[in-house]
Structure formats: structure tokens, C-alpha cells
């Protein structure tokens, strides 16, 4: 499988917020159809890596490649149109738009509203019932469903998930990852950053451990899991 060219590849990526450098050379590959879990404690650089992949934060060094093409300095809107679907940390919804309007806004990548609505309401019927409700007044789980719906209907090439579990009940987190697993089964590639490794390791093909702005270990999920506790506890 590793013979295949990676869909998303980061080589020696550096990134900074103003004068403060956060990523010191991140190497990461996501192969087609695989799920890569980005693990690590707070402040390790997971979210920054996700922002770089989504085009929200420019690189200060290294290379970002999409399907073999160097795309350093790509804007987020272009990345989205190229098929990178990124669901940011927190809730990836517009709180002051209704459910339907949120889906409408998601058609910026070229999808059709009707397709999006159908995909979302079939997978999450509760969203169909509340299509005219403001997204901000939905429960946390429903908001995350709505955010995930963007990945369902827009047919992306790669899905970036940042802290899907944040602030959600464990049962909902399980349901979310079930949906992700189904998407993967349909052939989607996923890069998922997660603090709570338990939630994501079962569906991951590869896991990478990030510490202090670098990927310090990567490999099979089982192997990485053993290293987790020592790195989380600052060993």
C-alpha cells in the first residue's frame, strides 16, 4: 500500500504564529483510503498542523503536497475547492444560520444544495426535523452532526477532523466515529487529530504522535498506543 503516492504529504513543515514558531519540521503522509490519527497532548501542534493542511495558516518552511503537487501557500478557499474538507476545532457551524442555510453555505465547493440536504437528512434525521432552526440553538452533538454533514454531501478527497470529540458525550463521540468509519469504508481518506486516543484508534490505519511541534513517532495504532501514556504524562 505504501508504494502508492500519498494523497496528502507534509515534509519538514514549519509554521509560526507571528514570531513564535510552533511546528518545527512535521513529516506526515496520508495515503488514499487510509485513516491517519494525529495524537498527542495539548500544545503539541496538532491543531496547527490541521490548519496548515487546510490552508488557514501559511507555511514558513517545508513542503505541503496534495496528490503529489506542491501547494505551499494555497488559500483555504482554493484548498476547499480542491477537495480538502476541513472541520475545525470546536463546532464547524455558523451559529446564526439555520441548519439548511449552513448546508447552503457548504455548497461553496460546487456541490448542490439538494444533494447535501439529502445526504445530511438521511444520515442524521434529527437535522431534517430541525432544518429551519438556528444552528447555534442545536445541542453540541447535533452541531457536530451538521458539521460532519459537510463531508457527506460535498464528496471531498480528504477529510480533516480536528478534535471531533471536544465537549461531547462519549456516546455521541462513538456515533460520530461510526459515521466517519462508514465514510472511510466508502473510500474517503481521513486525517484526524484527537486528544482522546481511545476514540479514534479503532478506526485508524496509522497513528502519529506529535510532541513539541514534531511528529516523534508513527506506526501501527497498537504500537503508538503503548507510547501514549508516557508522552502524555511528560515522561
Amino acid at each position, binding site marked *: 500500500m505504501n508504494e502508492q503516492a500519498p494523497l496528502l504529504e507534509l515534509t519538514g513543515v514549519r509554521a509560526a504564529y507571528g*514570531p*513564535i*514558531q510552533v511546528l518545527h519540521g512535521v513529516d506526515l503522509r496520508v495515503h488514499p483510503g487510509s485513516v491517519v490519527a494525529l495524537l498527542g497532548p495539548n500544545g503539541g501542534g496538532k491543531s496547527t498542523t490541521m490548519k496548515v493542511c*487546510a*490552508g*488557514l495558516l501559511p507555511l514558513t518552511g517545508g513542503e505541503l503536497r496534495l496528490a503529489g503537487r506542491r501547494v505551499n501557500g494555497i*488559500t*483555504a*478557499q482554493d484548498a*476547499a*475547492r480542491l477537495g480538502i*474538507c*476541513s*472541520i*475545525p476545532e470546536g463546532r*464547524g*457551524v*455558523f*451559529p*446564526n*444560520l439555520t441548519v439548511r*442555510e*449552513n448546508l*447552503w*453555505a*457548504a*455548497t*461553496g*465547493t*460546487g456541490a448542490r444544495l439538494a444533494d447535501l440536504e439529502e445526504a445530511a437528512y438521511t444520515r442524521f434525521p434529527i437535522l431534517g426535523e430541525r432544518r429551519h432552526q438556528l444552528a447555534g440553538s442545536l445541542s453540541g452533538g447535533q452541531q457536530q452532526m451538521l458539521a460532519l454533514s*459537510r463531508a457527506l454531501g460535498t464528496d471531498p478527497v480528504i477529510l480533516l477532523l480536528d478534535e471531533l470529540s471536544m465537549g461531547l458525550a462519549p456516546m455521541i463521540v462513538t456515533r460520530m466515529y461510526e459515521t466517519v468509519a462508514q465514510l472511510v469504508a466508502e473510500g474517503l481518506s481521513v486525517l484526524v487529530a484527537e486528544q482522546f486516543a481511545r476514540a479514534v484508534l479503532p478506526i485508524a490505519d496509522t497513528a502519529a504522535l506529535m510532541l513539541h511541534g514534531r511528529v516523534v513517532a508513527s506506526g501501527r495504532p497498537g504500537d503508538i498506543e503503548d507510547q501514549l501514556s508516557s508522552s502524555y504524562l511528560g515522561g
Partner: protein
Amino acid sequence: MTSFLTFTILGLVLGAVYAIAASGLVLTYTTSGIFNFAHGAQAMLGTFLYWQLTYGWGWPMWLSLVVVVGLAGPAMGALLHMLIMRGLRETADVTKIVVTVAIMLGMVYLSQWIWHPEEARVTEMFFGANAKIELGGVVVRVHELVCLVVAVAVAIGLRLLFTRTRAGVVMRGAVDDPDLLRLNGHDPDRIAMLSWAMGSTLAVLAGILVTPIGGGALEANQLTLLVIDAFAAAMFGRLRSIPRTFTGAMVLGMTATYVMAYFPTDWTWAGNLRVSLPMIILFVVLIVLPQDRLRVAAVRTRERYRPPTPRSAAVWGAALVAAVFLLALLLDDGSITTFALGMTFAIVALSLTLLTGYAGELNLAPLSFGAVATITGFHFGVTGSGLASRLTLWGVLLAVLVTAVVGGLVALPALRLRGLYLALATMAFGVFLSNMVLRDTTEHTLFGVTFSIFPNGTLIVPPLQVGPFDLRDPRTLLMTATVLFALIGVGLAALRASGYGRRLAAMKDSPAAAAMLGQNLVKLKFGVFMLSAAIAGLGGLLMASAGGSVSGDNFAIMSSLALVMLTVVGGIGYISGALFGGLVSGVGFTIMVGTFNDLATAHPSMESIYKTIGQLLVVATALIGMGVGKNPSGTVHDIVEGYRTLRGARALLAGAAAVEAVLYGLALTGVIGNWWFAILTACLVMALPVAGRMRAAAPVRRTPPELAGVAEPYSDELRERLDRELGLPARERMAKEASVHAVA
């Protein structure tokens, strides 16, 4: 009944125009988070352009309408967004307000430059003033019908846009989260540009429609303020809801018409009331309608201020007094009076340093508090008559005290307001005061006492005299104002360094966190507002007595806004920023325009060039204000940062001081003129940081901050640099803490 219907329709028409203007305001605010104070000025510019095309150049009306509303309006909005507004992300409220205020002032200056304000210009109603239709016994002008139709069309159009089109939905999403919009494949900049273009078009449309209703005469300030009245309507909709904005506009329009129609004619203040009604309604709406809750997370902004220690403030204060004393020796009496006037403005500006710079609250009408003090001083603090009349010390104290109380009273209902809302409330107070109190020249009889608040439209405020100490002498006045400025400045620095100052800073950075630590925010705000009003009052009273006499125009909202703008340009967090703002806004304009007018009279062949340069400089001041968006910490901050490179360069500093001393000696003995002295000094001041940078440019390899302590030893110098990069002020405090730890 017919007259009631007529007035109702007139009210609806006025409301319709307010609604058009206010919906443009809501549009830009919801999509970019910037409350556009320049909205009225945009309307004004558009109307003037329309006048120029139709009446100046005789174009057919439909053509100029197409050009102005269809091309110039959108282009103006798109340009504003591209050049200025998009640079305003992640800046504090005060910066956003000041930049749009600067645009407003710049547009007003620009229009006064192009269209000389003393010529009369009139635009007529569409289809003429005599085209009328009778509807059920009520006669309505066609122009008024046009206004109503346009307003309805705008309402329906906006409603459809926001709910039925993707562009509109995305516009609403832009407020929530522009980054998420980009992740969805949209370009937030393009969306914001579209909304600015539409907002600007609506402003222009409102301006063209409203001018003939208000009599047809074009006057830049008046037209600008007329659209500002629409702020109240926008506030009805909490700057968000278009339908509620329209309701608010109708209420506003009809109330104004009914007041005009049904108040008894012997109530002389009814006319003034009608003019200030929108501002009263704005104030009430701000206070009564629930506003947004406190933001819990600390607001991250780009502004950085380094508060001075009381000791360094004292040293600089003494240096300022000495410098002004030496400078005064060079000047003639007339210039000294002008200079003193500027210094009193600087004292008013100090009230902003305290309120906005330290406490993070906003006041857009500092001069209005000065007006309160002036009125009090005039009525209760003057002894003697004619040339022998003098302001007494007790009078000044009383005036300051009354201003503090008024400041508290204004702040009291506004205490739960923050940021933009507080700024609008103070602006409403300022405009209200200008329209109601400062225009109140008639005599009232209350409890058997006959008085008038502002007799004859001017107040003669005599100079202060305490014992042998007489401020009639301009030099004494200048030195007194300077010493007062220095004293208050040092006091403010001491205040900032005290526990109270830290509480203010905490409130500014995160009101929620400060409240959770058990701070009584209401008490803090109340106190700081009163203190700031007192300072503004003292400055205002001195200003009035320095000028000899004042009229209501001296305290107009435009002057207040210019003062606020220039203080922010200087650096709202710095005492020297107040000095800069006060001097430039108080007398800078007068000097600039005066100098070039003098040059123009002296060299008639170059007259037009000199006059143009003078006007250009005035417009340029507003351009500086717009530059605040790029450099929100202020000019003073930059200069201080520039001079930081000179630390330790004793030889260079000593040399510069010697050169300056020689220059001063030459100027004093009359070898070189004052202008040469000023120009050479300015050159010296600007050259110094450059020299310092050249000196510091010796190749020092810098370790990235995160490798500090790893790749190089963790020295004191390094710690200082880290503090600077992270924007931490606490060099001394950390040293203190370190010693505490050592003891522990």
C-alpha cells in the same frame, strides 16, 4: 384628521429615508463587524457628486442617478473595503471606531475642499416640488412617494437577498466565522467587499433622497449628521435585524414629525428637541434594549502599550515644562496664546488616555464635558465685570466638580454598555448637548429666576486669577496649562501603576475575568468615568478662557471626534499621545491652514498651489487616522520603539543634545528664524532613530525565541527580549518576583 394623515405620511417618508440609510449600516456591520461612522459622510459625498453632475454640469437627471447610485456608490464602498476595512481585523473597538471616524472627517474635509462651503447648492425634488398626487384627501408629493417606494423595494430586496440567495446567506455567515467560510470554499474578502459596496450604495441613495426633503440645501456637516441620525434606527434592530431596523426608522421619522407638528409654538425648545430627538432615542434604545453579553474570552488585539513608571513620567513632565518654557521665549504673544489653547486641548485629551487607554471604555464626546464645565464656570465662577472680570479658583473647582457629577450621570445608565455601544451613547450625549443646551439662547424663568444657558450664542469666559497669579498674561497661561498637563500626566502614570490602575487594566483586557476575581465593574467604570469627565471639564474650561470666548461650535461633535481620532493616532495608551492629539487637533489645523494662507497672500503668483497644499494637509490628517488600522498602537509607540535602539548610545544622544542647544541658541539670538529652527529640530528628531538603527544593525545573529535558553544562555537581555516579543510589560515586576522567590 387630514392634517394628522399628512403629518403621518411626512413621518413615514422621513422614516423611509432613515430606513434606507440604516439598513446599509446594518449590512456592513453584520458582514464585517465594523460600525461605519463614515456612513453619513459617504451619503454626503454621493449627494454632492449628484449635485455636481446634475446641476453643476447639467447632465440629465437619470444619467447622473445611474452614475452616482449605480457606479460611484458601489465603487466607493468596494474601495473603502479594499484599502482600509480589510486591514481592521483583530483590532480593538476603539481602533475600528477611530478609523471610520477618520474616514468620515476626511470625506467632510475633502468635500469642503472641492465644493466650497460658502456657496449655496440646492437639489430639487424628483419630478419637481409641485408634482403632487391626492390620495384620500391628503396631498402627497411625488418625491415623497418615490422615497416610500424605494424604501419598500430595499426592504424586500434585502429580505430576499438574506434568505433566498446563497450570497446573502454566506454574508450572514461571514459575521460568525470568516475562517469557516473559507473552509467552505468562499472568499470572505469578496463577500465583505460586496456588502460594503451595497452599504455604500444605500447610503448614497438615502443622501440623495433626503436632501430635498430637508429643504434641498447641501451642507457637508449637516448632511453627514443627518444620516448619523439613522444610527438610532439601526440600534432598534440591534445592528442585526433588518425588519426591526425598519420599524425603528418609522418610529423615529414619525416622532420627529409629530413633535414638530403638535408641540405648542411657544415652546421655543421644541425645534431643538426635534433636531436632537434621534440622539435621545439612540441613547434610550441603547440603554433599554438588551445588548450582547460580555465576551468571556479575552479579546486578542494588536494594540500594545507600555505604561510608564511614575518616576519616568515625572522626569518627562519636568522636561516638557522646561522645553515649553524655552520654546515660549522664541514665540510672540499671539503664537503663545495659540500654543496655550493647544495645551488645554491636550488636557482634555488626557481624559481619553485615562478612560480609553487605561480602562478601555470609550467616550466620543470629550469636548461636551468641557462644555458643561464652561457653562458652569460662566454662570457661577466669574467675579467682577467687563475687563476686570475674572474666573475664580472656586469657580474652576465647582465647574470641575459639576462636570464630574454630569459625567457620572451620563455614565450611570450607560454603565452596562461596552465598546461600541458606550461610544454611541456618549456620542448621542454629545450631539444632544450641542443641539439642545448649546443652542439654548433664549431666556427661561424657573422658580422666579430668569436665566439663559447660552446667552447670545457665545460665552465670554474671562481668565483665571488667584491672588497675584493672573492668567491674562499669555505666558503665564501657557505655563500654567503646561504644568497642569504635566501634573495630571504624572498623576495618571501613578494611578496606572497603582492597584486601581491594575484593576482598570484587568477590566479592559477581560471584563468577565475581572468580575470573576470579585471586582465591582460598575463601581470601577463609574469612578473612572467621573474622573475622566473632571479632567475633560478642567481642560474645556481652560480652553474657553484661553480663547476668551466660545460658541457652541467649539464643542461640536466633529471637533470631539477629531480630538479622539488624533489622540488615538498619537497613541491612546500614552500620555504623550494625548499631548500630540491635543496640540494637533486644538491648533494644528489653524496653524497649517493659516501658514499656507499667509504664504499664499505673500506670494500671489503661487496662491493656488499654497492653498491646495494647506487643504491637502488637512485631508492628510484624516489619512493619518485611517493609518491607525495598520499601526493601532499609535505614532508615539513607533517613535519610542525607534528610540529604543539608542539606549546606551550616550555619545550620539549627547551630540544630538549639543546640536539642538546650538540651534536653540541661534534661534534665540535671531540668527535663524523660528521656522528654520522647527524644521531643523524635526530633522534631528527623525534622524536620530535612523542613526540608532544603523548602529544596531551590526549583524547580531538572533536565536528564535523558542530556542532561548537552549541554544544560548538564558540571560537578562534575552528575558527582556522575550517579554517584548510577547508584549509583557513587567520587567521590573519580574525582578521583584524573582527576589521574593529567592527569599522564600
